[in-house]
């Protein structure tokens, strides 16, 4: 077994196991910690796909940022409510049937599609090329993204401001 295959299976087991824990754990706080693990495993998948820059972004923004925000939200609301938030799930059977059907449909399409098996060689440094294309061809969406983040920041501040 080559390193590539071993890395893929290791990451796949880690990712799917932690994702299942996210949706099945009773304790919401544990659920967020499992989400942090699955987001880190996703960064590993990006690394396995030679996207080092995206793996770093994934770790910084998701595993760092999102998990912090969610933990903050849980702690805030728990402090206000004065009790632990457990999360009861419902319609487990219907949910399993529907998501199973979705998975089945996608896998059926995948099996019929002619997909490449070998990775073509990328001659250039991917991170360098990403930075170059981002600053030339895609500079307008890049700037729009900055505006979006500013608006999102203002919106979040506006919604979550302290009560007067």
């Amino acid at each position, binding site marked *: 077994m080559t390193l590539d295959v071993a890395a893929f299976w290791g990451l796949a087991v880690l990712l799917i196991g932690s994702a299942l824990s996210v949706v099945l754990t009773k304790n919401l706080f544990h659920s967020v910690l499992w989400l942090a693990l699955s987001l880190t495993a*996703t960064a590993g998948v990006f690394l396995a*796909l030679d996207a080092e820059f995206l793996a770093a972004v994934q770790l910084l923004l*998701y595993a760092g940022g999102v998990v912090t925000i969610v933990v*903050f939200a849980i702690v805030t*609301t728990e402090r206000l409510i004065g009790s632990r938030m457990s999360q009861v799930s419902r319609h487990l059977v219907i949910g399993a049937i529907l*998501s199973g059907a979705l998975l089945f449909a*996608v896998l059926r399409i995948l099996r019929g599609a002619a*997909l490449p098996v070998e990775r073509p060689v990328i001659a250039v440094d991917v991170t360098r090329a990403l930075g170059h294309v981002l600053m030339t061809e895609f500079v307008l969406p890049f700037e729009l993204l900055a505006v979006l983040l500013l608006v999102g920041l203002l919106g979040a501040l506006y919604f979550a401001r302290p009560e007067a």
Partner: protein
Amino acid sequence: MGLNAYLTLAAVLFAIGFFGVMTRRNTVGILLGIELMLNAVNINLVAFARFNADIVGMIFTSFTIPITVAEVALGLAIVILIFRMKRTVVADHLDILKG
């Protein structure tokens, strides 16, 4: 591993996230399920970019990740706001839009 393996992994992850969105009653739990689904989409984008040796797919991913983070920040701000008004985060109890 071929492209098929990565797409299958992403499909399984998407289905798990979908399951979470449908079964969770807590709003924050539903958001966590959406996060899993978005991650599956990002894996798909990067896998297609790598196997087609086309960097634009990775550019797309580098846009979707910050947008998702902004979405989570806003979503949680809305959850906190709703919590202040209704004292609950259970999605079934949030029926203020009902006519």
